[in-house]
């Protein structure tokens, strides 16, 4: 009982880390050589990632400061072009877990959006501007920019496909 409440008290995002640390602890006793190799590899990866995390923090703060969901909604107008533009920019600029945006998308679909625009918004959530520096570190600026543009174009394509496939579906 006490054990159960102790586990419940640990935030869920820490559970995974605790399990992995436990695996490392077992490895330490079972195969010390592999433990050292894996630990060194961890340090090497962290050295690559950590400096860019500082930049991610700054960019996250800037995007949180400039774009609140209420602000984004206030720019929504009736024209089709503006709706697509909103779906693309809104998706790119929105932050937080994707499921946080499902209720807002359902609401928008009742009022202004069709299925294609909802899909376009959700697809553009894959574009993470604050994480762009990390991608540049790993794959180069040229690749990161190309992927960004191809993703945006594909989001429109997906929106149009979804509109075709969802014809006749009751909301």
């Amino acid at each position, binding site marked *: 009982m006490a054990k159960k409440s102790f586990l419940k008290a640990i*935030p869920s*995002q820490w559970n*995974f*880390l605790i*399990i*992995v640390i436990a*695996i*490392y602890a077992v*490895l330490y006793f079972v195969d010390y050589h*592999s433990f050292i*190799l*894996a*630990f060194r*590899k*961890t340090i090497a*990866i*962290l050295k*690559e*990632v950590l400096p860019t995390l500082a930049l*991610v*923090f700054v960019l*996250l*703060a*800037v995007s*949180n*400061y400039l774009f609140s969901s209420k602000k984004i909604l206030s720019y929504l107008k009736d024209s089709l072009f503006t709706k697509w533009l909103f779906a693309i920019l809104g998706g790119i600029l929105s*932050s*937080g877990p*994707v*499921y946080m945006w*499902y*209720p807002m*998308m*359902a609401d928008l679909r009742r009022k202004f959006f069709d299925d294609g625009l*909802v*899909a376009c918004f*959700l*697809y553009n*959530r*894959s574009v*993470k501007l604050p*994480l762009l520096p*990390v*991608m540049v570190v*790993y*794959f180069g600026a*040229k*690749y990161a920019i*190309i*992927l960004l543009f*191809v*993703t945006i174009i*594909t989001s429109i394509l*997906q929106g149009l*496909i*979804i509109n075709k*496939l*969802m014809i006749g*579906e009751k*909301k």
Partner: protein
Amino acid sequence: MSKMQNSSGEGRLKDLLKKSLLNSLKKSAISLYSTLPLLLATVLLIALVFTLVPPDLYSPILESGGFVGAFSAGLIGSLLAGSPIISYIVAGELIKNGVSLFIATVFIVAWVTVGVVQIPAEAMILGKRFALVRNVTAFLLTFVIAALTVFLNNLI
């Protein structure tokens, strides 16, 4: 009088901006803090997998470059969830181990555009058919994006 009103208005605006900035910093700190344990655990796990599972074992599947390699990368990317940084790290390590840029791109794009884990929530709020059609088309488009990106990357 009007000068005084202006200066108090400016002060209020400054206070509001300061509060908003502090709020943004707090929000990003919370967001990053909540990702850190997952990020650290993933890095530890990746290092462990790359140490214990020799590249000879998985590389042939992903390196094959054909349908099986790309499909496996897409499937794995679709099933896994979490911060996109993690997918960049994994894909970066895969490339270092000889996996093609096309397959690494399929993995990254599937990771961020297909959400198998979120399908129940999406279906509940936006409809079963919508969730299914959206995720299936996103999965198929993953290969289009990867092919186009690699093609343009080589071309430019």
